[in-house]
């Protein structure tokens, strides 16, 4: 995670609980292969939510507002599948311009363009910052520590 250079911003708004996390990732695609689409992202979350042994990850395909997720037990994140989206752009690299290559290589490669797809994925996740998400999970923590005492 350190290498990714994560940036985080926060705003506070006049609601009493219920928060939204908007996650933006830039993903490098395979040079040959299926592009990363919103359907793929949503299927990853849907699968992960159904596989989650403790049920902390939830996936929703409904149109939710913040109040809708208040109190949902142990929902560390409710992924708003309806809103998730992706955009794919291309990096164009002229191999003849790659620094550090030998002169011979450069003349061979000049004009060879490699196109690298980069996909930006925007993912929305709700969390009830009081009871539904945090306090319920804190309760699980207390019980888990107690069991090992």
């Amino acid at each position: 995670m350190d290498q990714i250079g994560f940036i985080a911003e926060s705003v506070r708004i006049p609601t009493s609980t219920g928060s939204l996390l908007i996650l933006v990732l830039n993903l490098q695609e395979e040079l040959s292969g299926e592009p990363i689409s919103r359907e793929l992202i949503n299927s990853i979350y849907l699968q992960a939510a159904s596989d989650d042994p403790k049920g902390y990850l939830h996936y929703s395909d409904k149109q939710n507002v913040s109040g809708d997720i208040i109190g949902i037990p142990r929902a560390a994140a409710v992924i708003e599948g309806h809103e998730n989206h992706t955009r794919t752009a291309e990096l164009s690299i002229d191999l003849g311009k790659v620094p550090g290559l030998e002169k011979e290589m450069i003349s061979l490669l000049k004009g060879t363009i490699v196109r690298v797809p980069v996909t930006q994925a925007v993912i929305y996740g709700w969390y009830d910052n009081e009871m539904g998400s945090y306090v319920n999970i804190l309760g699980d923590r207390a019980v888990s520590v107690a069991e090992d005492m």
Partner: protein
Amino acid sequence: MDSRIGNDQGLKLGINGLGRIGKLTIWHHVGRKYFNELVVNIGREAGTSLEDIAHYLERDSIYGSLHGFLYGQNSAPLIGDLDEENGSLTIDGVTIRFLRSFRNPIEINWKTHGINLVVDTTGQFLDPTLPADHPKGAVRGHLESGAEKVIVSAPFKIKDEGKPMPEDVVTSVMGINDDAYDPRRHKIISNASCTTTCLAHMMKPLINAFGPKKILSASMATVHAATGSQEVLDRLPKAGAVDLRKSRSIMNNIILTTTGAAKALSLVIP
């Protein structure tokens, strides 16, 4: 076997603080009934009698009534057996005892109440590098006064950033890096923040699917509900305040603030 209250070892839970997190933690454990007794340190008087504390526990501006939250519309109030002298009451069979004398963890005397596990929800004692007898109080004070384990409901805040993290301290998000907690080694556990918890659960499936190398860059923004640190109306900033937005009215404002959620993420997903 009937719905039993309590765990096999008869372990009780200590809770420091009765703010939003402390109170809702009581709600959680009253519903769960893993602990048959909760000892809650408020550290001061509240209202004029135990009845005032009972009312505060019974109703909630966000979640409604305690009995409604646990058992639905047709249920009856659950708080009873108010014992003003002992500062205790029962909720749905769970005994709750209130301590109202000391704010400094080292003075709370958890031992006499049979408490060896404490959840500190005050947000006031988040520096595990400070000694137990630090004049303003420190999280290690709980360990001195009887707790074997302390869970804090926020990320650690180390004042002197040069200091290394002590060996008996860990930050863990449930369902993400549960293995990081070693019961033989760790005495102080940070449960991280709500935002880090959400972020970690959002990142994990993508890291598993694509691998960290495919993630070129990442950023997040949280649109976050108000917390107790907000002001109702504009106030004069505190002496030495660097973030002036913290003193502005949360009513009718979008207030920019900082979050340590991304930094904290690397503690739970390396």
